């Protein structure tokens, strides 16, 4: 130790600069004088080290606030592991030293500590010697000490702004209240203030006066916002693919539990139909039309892990089946099991460049969901709560009592049919003066919903966390006694080592949903006769009117109890061994169970029916795990940057389903037990659908001078769904972008154009959307035995040649921004062509089956364009107003189908027409003589006996003609208002269709839309509604009429889809309440609709399912 000190002493008096020798003598003198003192005062605190380390290579996390230099150095010595030697008396005068806590090299830290002193330092082995600079002979450079804060245009502080001395690594950042302190050695330095989403400001230090307030302007161009893409991130500026991102701020404006509600109308090219207004109901989600055939849906990926979308098999059919738009069968939409409040952003990937890296499953587009992560800063508690009501916004006009009775009597009279003993509505058994509006009575009430969220987040440079819990309650509008409740927990932890080389991100979510809505949807009971009896007796019991009335509330006694459990988890490990190289592993596991119990107690039937109680139990489990190692490499080459990614993917998904029915219960009280009955039978046979995917993928992205971008992606993908020799396929795409606004010619001459990019992409993606083992010939148990042997039956026809469906996507996009981003316009023209379409092709029943899975020789094309235009109409301190228009036009057509005429699809498809056209009869109005519907046959003449194949000559196209939306965001001082109108031009099933096959007046207790008033009454009448009657010929004609073009009509609408009004309390008020933020808000969904549609709702077009509801809520959101 002694030696060490002596050595140090020796070096202490050996300054390097020769021209300082004159003064050195003086210093030596002083020093010798003080030698003893100096020796005594030398601090030796740190442990020794065996091996020398460089102070510029050793990092230390260090910070002091208003400390003496002496204490600061002691602290740094303790934390750095180096031994510091310094003359105490020279150190002593310096106090009030502040250095922001941050990880820096020891060298940098010391520089900061000593920046405003006349001290300097040097390293000798493990020791650091601090000495007085030759201050006397040096010109004094006065360091600048700057303190201030950074705010936005509304004078709100912005924490986390990076303040950097231009051209150096010296940087600070603002604290949670936006304040910062910086010490700058050179008054000529330029400070850069940067923050994501704001325009970077550069200010020379000599123009600043303490304390400074820097106002950062919002970057309305959004060009440099982070966009999540497949296996990485990019910015809007650099992106070569077609991606639309919806962020948490937009999501927070919707009072919903399913984020698909938010995507409805906010993403160009994405069309979403809501199948039902019931909680947990399903949606139809389509990105740019139907690429193949049938119910294709996008691939959902949550934090890198694939997530099974769509509905699941349930017995409760009112959640999605039975809908006009051909929604997914079953209910419990999978996206409803993700709490929207936990979502940071949603990226909708559309073109080949963006989706080809998902290979086999990218054809129908990809929806990437990224959950919220914690941010650096003091712990922050966010809470929100809202509550509101929901109702049916629009009803259809129905016959009133007089019109109804008139219809029934006229029907009887027309066909000379006697009023029978069961015609209770007109034979006097029911009080024919009762007049009930059944729409109001059954679905005219209000549902209630409440939602609460509570979360904590924060962290430091090393660890960030976010924990959020949510609860939602939605009551059944139909007052059948059910409700839907969800409780969710989401945890995110991110951690990075001090050297930033190794990082971990974990996201885990769990959502429990309990739905107790009964399986009856009273929407299909609104056709009760106006004089049907009261629902309740005067004593309050369910009224059966002496066993003449099937009371729709009968099923109130049914038990529907569906718990579902959703686990999502993702872990991402990343290591950067050297600069530019990242090795990453993303792995995760998702599991979702939907277990439905439907109990039918003996009390859930009218008294005139005896029911042996029974229960149905449905079990659905979907699991997915995924391992994806990935290597990212970044390299500057020439004037450009190369980004390369290679990776592998291994995914395993499994779906099991089963439904059982148990009968023979001795008591209703045992119904919830599957084993308490005497007999268990199969409703849905147990099925296991395992799928495995393995892939190698890669992407090379090169940008030259931030002007020219090229992007190549490829994926060799294998799927277990295909036979041995058909399992692997290679998908690839190329994309390119040209920021022409960076060309000097344009830059100099068209200054109003601040950004212009032309991009294009071309490539292939695939779809393997068939059930596992489709290539194999199999038998399965039929669940019954004969002669004591359990039977086996053939299951399907095998197709060993099954292979991929491939979609080739071509796209050209143009992005323009004018006036510094105040006008932003994007348009994309695309053409997707799908070949080898996977279809469950109809076969002649002579083959033993009705269909076979095959690759159709068809080529299906979707071509169109979408566009978005965002204008910032006003923007100043108090008032801002921006508007976004979205527009989409997609045309689907069957491009090619060799030998269609002789194929099984000869009567289903037409070359050049959309693939979901329907062929229907040509309606010929009502025969003026007989008063019965007539139809034109294939020969163009009225044909009495229609051939159900050849006489269907009219093509009905229910694809949207175009759709779009207009969104306005307006803020004035503390108020903020946004509203979104969504519109769609389309044809659909009209009220005539929804009459169904029972002609008006034909049976008792069946009411109709008022359109039947215009019916035929006497020979010579020319009208479009046939006569009232009870003849079977009316029934047959009605059945044909709903299969004719009369059943389709305009179903276009414009809907005020979302309104959100909020008031944020002023900061000074809020801080008195010890809060950071407090906001109160009103939100509404589906507020009103402008439409000529004559049924209940043009969106789900159903006479049986509750329409999408109007929701109005009020709530508050606060941050502590």
């Amino acid at each position, binding site marked *: 130790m002694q030696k060490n000190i002596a050595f140090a002493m020796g070096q202490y008096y050996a300054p390097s600069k020769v021209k300082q020798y004159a003064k050195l003598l003086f210093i030596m003198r002083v020093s010798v004088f003080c030698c003893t003192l100096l020796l005594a005062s030398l601090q030796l605190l740190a442990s020794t080290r065996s091996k020398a380390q460089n102070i510029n290579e050793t990092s230390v996390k260090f910070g002091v606030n208003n400390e003496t230099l002496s204490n600061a150095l002691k602290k740094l010595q303790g934390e750095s592991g180096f031994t510091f030697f310094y003359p105490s008396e020279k150190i002593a005068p310096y106090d009030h030293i502040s250095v922001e806590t941050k990880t820096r090299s020891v060298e940098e830290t010391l520089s900061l500590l000593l920046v405003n002193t006349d001290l300097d330092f040097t390293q000798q082995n493990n020791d650091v010697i601090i000495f007085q600079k030759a201050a006397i002979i040096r010109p004094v450079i006065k360091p600048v000490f700057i303190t201030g804060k950074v705010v936005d245009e509304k004078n709100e502080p912005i924490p986390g702004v990076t303040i950097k001395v231009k051209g150096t690594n010296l940087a600070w950042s603002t604290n949670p209240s936006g304040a910062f302190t910086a010490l700058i050695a050179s008054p000529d330095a330029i400070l850069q203030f940067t923050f994501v989403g704001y325009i970077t400001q550069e200010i020379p230090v000599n123009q600043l006066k303490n304390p400074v307030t820097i106002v950062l302007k919002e970057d309305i161009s959004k060009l440099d916002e982070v966009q999540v893409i497949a296996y990485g991130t990019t910015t809007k500026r650099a992106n070569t693919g077609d991606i639309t991102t919806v962020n948490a701020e937009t999501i927070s404006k919707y009072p919903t539990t399913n984020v698909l509600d938010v995507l409805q109308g906010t993403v160009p090219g994405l069309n979403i139909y809501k199948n039902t207004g019931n909680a947990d109901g399903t949606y139809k989600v389509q990105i740019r039309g139907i690429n193949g055939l049938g119910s294709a849906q996008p691939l959902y990926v949550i934090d890198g892990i694939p997530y099974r979308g769509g509905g699941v098999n349930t017995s409760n059919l009112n959640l999605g089946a039975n809908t006009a738009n051909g929604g997914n069968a079953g209910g419990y939409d999978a996206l409803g099991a993700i709490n929207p409040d936990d979502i940071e952003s949603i990226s909708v990937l559309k073109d080949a460049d963006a989706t080809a890296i998902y290979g086999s499953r990218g054809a129908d587009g990809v929806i990437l969901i990224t959950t919220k992560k914690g941010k650096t800063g003091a712990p922050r508690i966010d809470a929100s709560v809202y509550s509101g009501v929901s109702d049916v916004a629009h009803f259809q006009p129905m016959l009133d009592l007089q019109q109804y009775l008139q219809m029934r009597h006229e029907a009887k009279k027309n066909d000379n049919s006697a009023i029978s003993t*069961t015609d209770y509505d007109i034979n006097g058994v029911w009080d024919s003066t009762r007049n009930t509006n059944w729409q109001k009575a059954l679905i005219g009430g209000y549902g209630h919903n409440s939602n609460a969220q509570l979360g904590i987040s924060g962290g430091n440079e090393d660890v960030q966390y976010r924990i959020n819990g949510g609860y939602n309650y939605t009551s059944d509008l139909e007052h059948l006694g059910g409700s839907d409740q969800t409780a969710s927990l989401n945890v995110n932890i991110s951690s990075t*080592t*001090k050297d930033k*080389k190794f990082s971990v991100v974990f996201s885990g979510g769990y959502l429990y949903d309990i739905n107790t809505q009964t399986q009856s949807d009273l929407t299909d009971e609104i056709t009760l006769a106006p004089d049907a009896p009261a629902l309740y007796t005067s004593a309050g019991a369910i009224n059966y009117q002496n066993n003449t009335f099937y009371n729709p509330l009968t099923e109130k006694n049914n038990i529907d109890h569906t718990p579902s459990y959703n686990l999502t988890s993702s872990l991402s490990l990343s*290591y950067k*061994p050297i600069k530019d190289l990242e*090795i990453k*592993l993303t792995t995760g596991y998702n599991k979702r169970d939907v277990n439905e119990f439907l109990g039918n107690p003996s009390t859930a039937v009218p008294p005139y029916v005896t029911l042996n109680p029974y229960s149905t139990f449905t079990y659905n489990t979907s699991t997915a795990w995924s*391992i994806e*190692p990935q290597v990212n490499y970044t390299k500057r080459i020439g004037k450009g940057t190369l980004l390369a990614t290679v990776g*592998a993917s291994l995914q395993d998904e499994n779906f099991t389903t089963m439904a059982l029915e148990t009968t023979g219960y001795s008591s209703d009280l045992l119904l919830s037990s599957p084993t308490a009955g005497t007999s268990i039978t199969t409703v849905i*046979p*147990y*099925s*296991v659908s*395992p*799928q*495995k*995917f*393995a*892939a*190698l993928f890669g992407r090379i992205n090169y940008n030259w001078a931030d002007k020219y971008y090229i992007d190549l992606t490829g994926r060799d993908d*294998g*799927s*277990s769904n295909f036979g041995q020799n058909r399992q*692997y396929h290679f998908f690839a795409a190329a994309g390119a972008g040209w920021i022409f606004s960076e060309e000097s010619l344009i830059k100099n001459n068209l200054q109003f154009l601040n950004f212009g990019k032309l991009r294009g992409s071309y490539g292939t993606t695939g779809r393997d959307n068939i059930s596992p*083992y489709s290539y*194999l*010939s*199999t*038998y*399965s148990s*039929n669940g*019954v*035995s*004969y*002669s004591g*042997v*359990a*039977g*086996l*039956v*053939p299951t399907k026809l*095998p197709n060993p040649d099954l292979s991929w469906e491939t979609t080739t996507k071509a796209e050209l996009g143009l992005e323009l921004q004018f006036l510094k981003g105040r006008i932003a316009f994007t348009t994309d023209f695309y053409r997707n062509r799908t070949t080898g379409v996977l279809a469950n092709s*109809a*076969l*002649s*029943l*002579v*083959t*033993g*089956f009705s269909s*076979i899975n095959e690759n159709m020789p068809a080529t299906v094309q979707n071509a169109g364009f979408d566009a978005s235009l965002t204008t910032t109409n006003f923007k100043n301190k108090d008032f801002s107003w921006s508007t976004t228009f979205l527009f989409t036009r997609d045309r689907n057509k069957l491009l090619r189908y060799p030998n269609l005429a002789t194929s*099984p699809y000869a009567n289903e498809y037409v070359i050049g027409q959309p693939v979901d056209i329907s062929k229907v009869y040509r309606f010929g109005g009502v025969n003026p003589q007989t008063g019965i519907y007539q139809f034109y046959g294939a020969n163009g003449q009225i044909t009495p006996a229609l*051939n*159900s*194949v050849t006489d269907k000559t009219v093509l009905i196209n229910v694809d949207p003609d175009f759709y779009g939306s207009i969104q306005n965001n307006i803020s004035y001082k503390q108020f903020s208002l946004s509203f979104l109108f969504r519109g769609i031009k389309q044809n659909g099933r009209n009220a005539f269709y929804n009459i169904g096959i029972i002609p008006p007046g034909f*049976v008792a207790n069946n009411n109709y839309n008022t359109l039947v008033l215009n019916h035929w009454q006497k020979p010579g009448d020319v009208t479009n509604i046939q006569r009232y009657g009870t003849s*079977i010929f009316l*029934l047959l004609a009605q059945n044909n009429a709903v299969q004719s073009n009369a059943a389709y009509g305009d179903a276009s609408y414009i809907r005020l889809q979302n309104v959100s009004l909020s008031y944020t309390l002023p900061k000074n008020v809020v801080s008195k309440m010890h809060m950071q933020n407090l906001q109160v808000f009103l939100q509404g969904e589906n507020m009103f609709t402008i439409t000529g549609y004559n049924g209940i709702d043009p969106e789900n077009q159903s006479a049986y399912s509750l329409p999408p509801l109007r929701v109005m809520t009020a709530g508050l959101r606060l941050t502590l």
Partner: protein
Amino acid sequence: MKKQYNYIKNATILSCIAGIVTASVLTSCKKVIDVGQPKTLINTANIYLSNSTAEAVVSGLYANLASTGHMYNGSGSLTIQQGLAADELKDYSSSATGTTMFYINALNSNNTYYWQEIFSELFTCNSAIAGLTSSTALNPAIQQQLIGDMKFARAFIFFNAVNLYGDVPLALSTDPAVNNVISRSPAATVLNQVIQDLTDAQNLLPDNKYVTLANGTPTDRFLPNKQTASALLARVYLYMKDWKNAETQSSNVISASSYVLEPVLTNVFLRTSRETIWDLQPISATSANGDAYSLIMTGVPNGIVNVYALSPNLLSAFESGDKRFTNWVGQIQSGTTTYYFAYKYKQNTVTGTSGVTEYPIMFRLAEQYLIRAEARAEQNNLAGAETDLDAIRTRAGLGNTTATNQTDLLNAIYHERQIELFLESGHRWFDLKRTGQLDAVMNIVAPQKGGAWSPYKALIPIPASEISTNPHLTQNPGY
């Protein structure tokens, strides 16, 4: 230092994992995505490797035949639908139900009717016959019987198909490429295949399988044997007017020791009946015979239940004193109206522990007597014919036939079939067709039922969807 070492270690592990996964993906792609054999299905390649799975396929087919709602049991059956189409039932169901179209003889090509069931079952037969025949792993005795079972079933199904549709596709393979473009074969060609299959089945199936057990209880008769094949063959020859062979085959059955005419009429349709040649075991131990459930009226018709009453035509055909009227016809009174209903099967619900006491009978001995009577009469063996006819009449409590010439005797036999076999497997409809009486009877009956008759309606329409899928299929004239 130590920390840094940890990072390096972690990174090494991570790189190793990445490397291993990547390497394994690269080297064994096939294995990586192997999901193994299906867990709830059996690969067809494995079915005929064991006796038990091979037997299960045959059980699966019979269970399918026996299912309520299919062609041989309850609603949707030949008994009910062809009974409605002919002159056996009066329909009180609400006109919106599917069977109304049968009743008013207004079938159309928009419906598939029996078509799907027929060809789905034939696929199983064809698949099984191919699999069983080529298998080398099965016990030869079992293998032989199972092939016999399947050939019998195939003949039975094809025969019904021809009777309903006329010419039908002779689908004998399982290859969709063949069957999806197949044309209809002439009925005669199909019937040749039926005879071939039945001849094979006679050789393959056990002889006289059913014997009465020592305690007097007859065994169940739900698996076909050699005599079942003969009984069907007798029926086939009768329909083909091959009288000699029809007599030979029916004699084979009548002479077999296992079968006797049950002297007591109420015992004929019991599970224990010794008259049964082949019946179908119900697939559920708690569901009644479907015919009984559908046909027995427990109250006045209300549009949904109790809707099938016996038609006036059938009721008036009973001779006075016919014990079959008192034993096989039920009545229900409502005011001054009496509804009569088929009461051959009497167990319309299964309660308690009694189990199912009546199985749907496909073949019974009485029919064989009537086949032989007709075959003998056609061959001018009037005495022999009278003997067989009188065997049936005697049991019904009626006197011997008074017919003295061939024509009268044949008419008497037709009449006897109408009564004895009423509402069983559509006998009446098929008899009217094959004996040329259909138009005469239906011209009277159809208007009474609210419909209209045309001779083309003797055959039911090929589903239009089938013709659109396979343009090689042609529609029956008139549709």
